[in-house]
């Protein structure tokens, strides 16, 4: 068994002149860089998930069959199940909107998630406002404005259309916890 300690390195460096040596060092670094680049380019691109396809023309959901059946001045929560592309499987998600009308003709719809951290909020019948139980956020029913608590922006209002007495909502989700309204 040979021992390999630095003391055995002879003083004369044979062919190993300093110039050759530093060339080899730079060559190694260059090769290593190319190798790392060749591997990391596709790898870094692949770890970013593909962006979900946006539905053309919006995601219109029928939330009420007959406007005449909706209470005036009392919001109602409508839940609906949608099939969504979940990477390589198709799964179903439950989403909800709060629907509100003062005259039975014009409707307001709010995304069912609190703008703070996405909890489902509910209608507080006594105080007549929306209340989020997670961190005590409160919103105005008529405008969606924040009345109290940590939510950074008003409730996310959604587009509404009334066709043949049915109410349709263009359902979208928005980024949570930020003051700006940015589509998620």
């Amino acid at each position, binding site marked *: *068994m040979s021992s390999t300690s630095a003391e055995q390195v002879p003083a004369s460096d044979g*062919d190993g002149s300093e110039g050759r040596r530093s060339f*080899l060092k730079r060559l*190694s670094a260059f090769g290593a860089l190319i190798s790392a680049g060749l591997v990391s380019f596709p*790898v870094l691109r692949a*770890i970013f998930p593909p962006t979900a396809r946006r539905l053309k023309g919006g995601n219109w959901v029928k939330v009420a069959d007959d406007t005449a059946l909706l209470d005036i001045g009392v919001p109602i929560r409508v839940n609906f199940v949608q099939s969504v592309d979940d990477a*390589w499987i198709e799964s179903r998600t439950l989403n909800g909107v709060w629907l509100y009308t003062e005259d039975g003709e014009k409707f307001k719809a709010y995304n069912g998630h609190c703008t703070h951290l996405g909890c489902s909020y509910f209608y507080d019948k006594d105080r007549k406002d929306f209340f989020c139980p997670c961190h005590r956020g409160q919103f105005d029913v008529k405008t969606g404005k924040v009345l109290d608590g940590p939510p950074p922006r008003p409730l996310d209002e959604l587009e509404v259309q009334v066709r043949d007495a049915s109410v349709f909502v263009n359902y979208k989700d928005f980024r949570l916890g930020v003051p700006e309204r940015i589509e998620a």
Partner: protein
Amino acid sequence: MSRVGRWIDERIDLTGIRRSLLDRPVSQNLTWWHTLGSATLAVFLVQVVTGIVLGMYYSPSPDHAYESIRYLERAVVSGATVRGMHHWGASAMVVLVFAHMIRVFTMGAYKYPREINWLLGVALLFIVLGFGFTGYLLPWDQKAYWATAVGTNIAGTTPFIGAKLVTLLRGGSQQGAATLTRFYSLHVLLLPVLLVIIVGLHLFLVIRQGVAPRTAELETNAPKRTSDSGYPAYYRTREHESKTGGYRFWPDIIAKDVITGTMVIAILAILGRFVGAGLEAPADPTDSSYVPLPEWYFRPFFQLLKLVPGSWESAIAVGLPMALVVVLLLLPFFDKRSTRSITKRPAAATILGGIIISMAVRLGASMRDQPKNAVAPEVGRILTSTERAGRTQFERQQCGGCHKLAGMAAVPKKEDAPDAPELTEVGLRHSTAWLHSYLEDPVRFHPDSKMPAYGPPTLSHQEIEELSRYLSSLRGLPALNKQPEFRDTFPEPLKAKETK
């Protein structure tokens, strides 16, 4: 050295590590063949990195494995490239490990004092083959499913323990969900841990023992056998002399290693990007017509089984790999003559040459022997029973004699066979109804068509319908995911009939 560097150095002696690791003197004139081991290591690192990405998108369940791979191939940016690199990396590992072993064998580097490292190397060879075998199943396409069925059946022919062994491999009596999770676990948990540990020991010994001096330096005036009492002293002197040239591991050796490694990685990147890994139709356990083939590096062995009579099968299928293991393990303990150069070891040269040539011949035979008439369903889904009946009809009527179809080996062409359109994407262009009418009487559509009419009495309407359904399922290679755009034009008489 920076202040932080000095602070760390005072505590854990980085200088000492550098001296014994990077500055260690090495034998001069090491060849390019000496870079094969480090190239294997480089490819292994590629496999680790690309494998982690594959793991992010892979679902090890028969319900979703195929879909998740297809998602990676189609939806993920560069996903196909990453998978392609992993796929070709597996082949590169096998090639490089074998080449490295041949290098060590021909230079007699497994002899004193490197017997232990040879044993570790043999273990690594079989771990790499284990990676190949377990990884092949994971995409859960036809090829994966049926090749693994055959592979595990071979293990089942082992005398006495065969039945137990095959259940153990499959995680049940039948190949299925439990087999997939089992192979997945072996591929991403057990084998990587084993490989890392043994590679660590392998490298530790390389650093501890140094690379073997060139053969000539260990042959002049050498004692006859490595077991002779004078040999260790002789070896030490010679080895010391070989290292006096002033060559050091860094950068003299590493520069060479990096060059080889970079070239190999560049080849992998090109193959991964431009050839890719391929994905057949999803595994269909009810499809008895599929002829499976193992990955190319198992083919010589697979081909060998065709040559032996059934009663010898288990002896060859199980005995040969076992014998190989035993021979490789015992090699450094039996072969104690001190001659190292392959040119001075005629017996070793003959055996090695014989093995390489016979493996190459059998690999070639296996390539030529590609099963004929195997029509691959190209839809990226499992065929319905009607479509499958149509596919049988396609083979029986020898449609492939004139028409080309991707994924199907060409049927020997008839002498006067006219050139006919390729059918790989016929289902994208024409509806089932159109295909049905066309098959009945092609001349009605194209007056100078050379295609025979298949309407009754040649085929019944039922059979034509089956054939049309099958043709309609041909919508290009699964990876392309094209949508059909029918361009059906019917000849006049039929149109008139329809308007009535």
